[in-house]
């Protein structure tokens, strides 16, 4: 097609293909994932009658809520082609800090503020290490993971802190109008995340930084402060998730967040956010978290030996990204 300057004919496909073609990339990947989620629910409800009961659905939603809160912060980080391996350790430290303060001062507010701010500070530290000291995100957050674990172990000395006031425990295991509280939080932060990513200037700048950081910098976008912002949000969300964990488990110990980091990253990847940056959505991450939790819940209900769970999780992550490569139009990075 010659490089003539005449505006070429508007997209000529007719019918549904045009409709599908017209959908921007991110909407297509979300639609595909919703379909996969629906099929999964159908299969599970056929396979085990205990699946499609309200109590199980609420149970799945609550488990997915915790995973989503952690993964939502991570989504922004991965959008900038970065990574945060320290979220699990962040949850551990923030939870123990909050637990100690709630027990010590007896006031829930102080504990909650402590948990959130510790998460935020850890996130900011990650951001500064990556932007000012210029250490690759993978290694910076890996180092931070060890430092945080060390601090938590030193701080907790192997103790566990248990038994918290019912008011605090409500945010983790409480019900309101029959629906677990964390599910509301999931809804609220899904909205905040969507609005922030799609409907604010900073969100657009984060997508641009992920797509081409040098072009963003040379367009006057403050790349460094956006990166610090992204890691700070990821840290803060880990702080929030730690509070809910604390409330739900009703006790804090050294390795509370240990097993959360990889599932959270998996949820983001299954949700369609690309590791190369610039592509992805918060809605996708929610669906990713739901798919991951549903599969594990289904396996438990069908009493499939727990040993198979890591195998299934691994296969799903690869399949999700493989289908993405197929559907994404010519975005061979």
């Amino acid at each position, binding site marked *: 097609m010659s490089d003539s300057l005449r505006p070429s004919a508007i997209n000529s496909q007719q019918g549904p293909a045009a409709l599908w073609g017209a959908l921007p990339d991110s909407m297509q990947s979300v639609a595909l994932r919703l379909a996969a989620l629906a099929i999964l629910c159908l299969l599970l409800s056929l396979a085990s009658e205990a699946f499609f009961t309200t109590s199980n659905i609420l149970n799945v939603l609550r488990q997915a809520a915790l995973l989503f809160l952690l993964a939502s912060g991570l989504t922004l980080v991965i959008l900038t082609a970065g990574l945060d391996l320290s979220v699990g350790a962040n949850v551990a430290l923030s939870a123990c800090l909050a637990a100690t303060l709630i027990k010590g001062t007896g006031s829930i507010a102080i504990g909650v503020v402590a948990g959130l701010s510790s998460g935020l500070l850890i996130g900011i530290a990650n951001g500064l290490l990556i932007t000012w000291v210029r250490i690759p995100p993978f290694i910076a957050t890996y*180092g931070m993971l060890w430092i945080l674990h060390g601090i938590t172990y030193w701080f907790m000395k192997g103790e566990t802190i248990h038994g918290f006031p019912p008011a605090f425990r409500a945010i983790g295991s409480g019900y309101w109008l029959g629906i677990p509280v964390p599910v509301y939080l999931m809804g609220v932060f899904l909205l905040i995340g969507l609005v922030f990513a799609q409907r604010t200037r900073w969100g657009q700048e984060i997508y641009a930084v992920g797509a081409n950081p040098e072009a963003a910098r040379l367009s006057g976008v403050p790349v460094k402060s956006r990166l610090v912002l992204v890691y700070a949000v990821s840290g803060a969300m880990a702080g929030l998730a730690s509070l809910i964990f604390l409330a739900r488990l009703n006790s804090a110990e050294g390795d509370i967040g240990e097993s959360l980091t990889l599932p959270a990253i998996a949820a983001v990847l299954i949700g369609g956010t690309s590791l190369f940056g610039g592509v992805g959505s918060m809605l996708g991450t929610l669906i990713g978290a739901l798919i991951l939790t549903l599969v594990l819940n289904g396996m438990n209900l069908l009493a499939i030996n727990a040993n198979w769970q890591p195998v299934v999780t691994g296969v799903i*992550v690869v399949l999700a990204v493989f289908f993405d490569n197929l559907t994404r139009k010519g975005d061979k990075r």
Partner: protein
Amino acid sequence: MAEPLLNLSAGADTWLRRVRTSGSSSGALMTLIGLCVVFSWITDTFLTSANLVNIATQSTVLLLIALPMTLIIMTEGLDLSIGAVLTVTNVVLAMVAVQTGGVWWALLAALSVGAVFGLVNGSLVARLGIPPFVATLGTLGVAQGLALVLTDGQSVVGIPESVQYFYSGTLAGVPLPLWIAALTYLVFHGVLYHTRFGAYIFALGGNREALSLAGVRTQVYWIAVYIVGGVMAGLAALVLTARISSGHPTAALGMEFDAIAAVALGGTSFEKGKGWLLGTLLGVLAVGVMRNGLNQVGVNSAVQVSAIGFLVIFALMIDAYRGRRA
């Protein structure tokens, strides 16, 4: 442990020049020297030959998986599954060793299981174009699950003496694992700097398009790099099984991150095919010295955990600082 300076056909000057050019980032070298000086100053038992041999032997397993990890990272790739593959090959090797009473069939089984995982990783990345982080995160899960399924959580015992010999045995006074590690390093050094495959690894990371235009079947070599990763996990399983004289479903989980940290510590960068094998060796030793030193001094174990994090970030800071200045 003096790094074997023997090199095959190339003149000594090219080797030294290569160290100067690609070895520009010496975060690992300075950290290693710093740690040794500090620990030998604080406790007299650190700088004893027994302890140094001790560190080297302990670091063997990590070195055996850090070497292939260097090659994979040089092709702008990553292998998160190598720790889990080492675990499943440890279990396989133990089970076969118990059945056959010998070591050779067991080693063969472990190497082939490792090769299969490597082939799967390579095909996912090279043929299906799935990002390495995602592909190997997938196989990490599969390998971890398989290890649990094979043993149903129980550890495999009754390992014949012939397997344990590979850790406890010595040859000419030097523990066997050290021979394995030194030999493997030499082979990797030869492969990377003196064979076509080595040049193609630099090319896979530096300019993949150029390699295919030169008429080379890039897919084959790209998959081969991941197969080397899998096979090395099988070999490392031999030393690991000999060391813990059993197969355990969670023996080496998480070791992949130690390997990646050691490689990064050693100055191999994540892009443009910039790699330095000696750096990885230094990185592995730095981690080993740190842990041993802190144990020697009896430092509170919580401080030990944080110290590893500081070590990684310190070394990278040195590189970033030198990188900016150089």
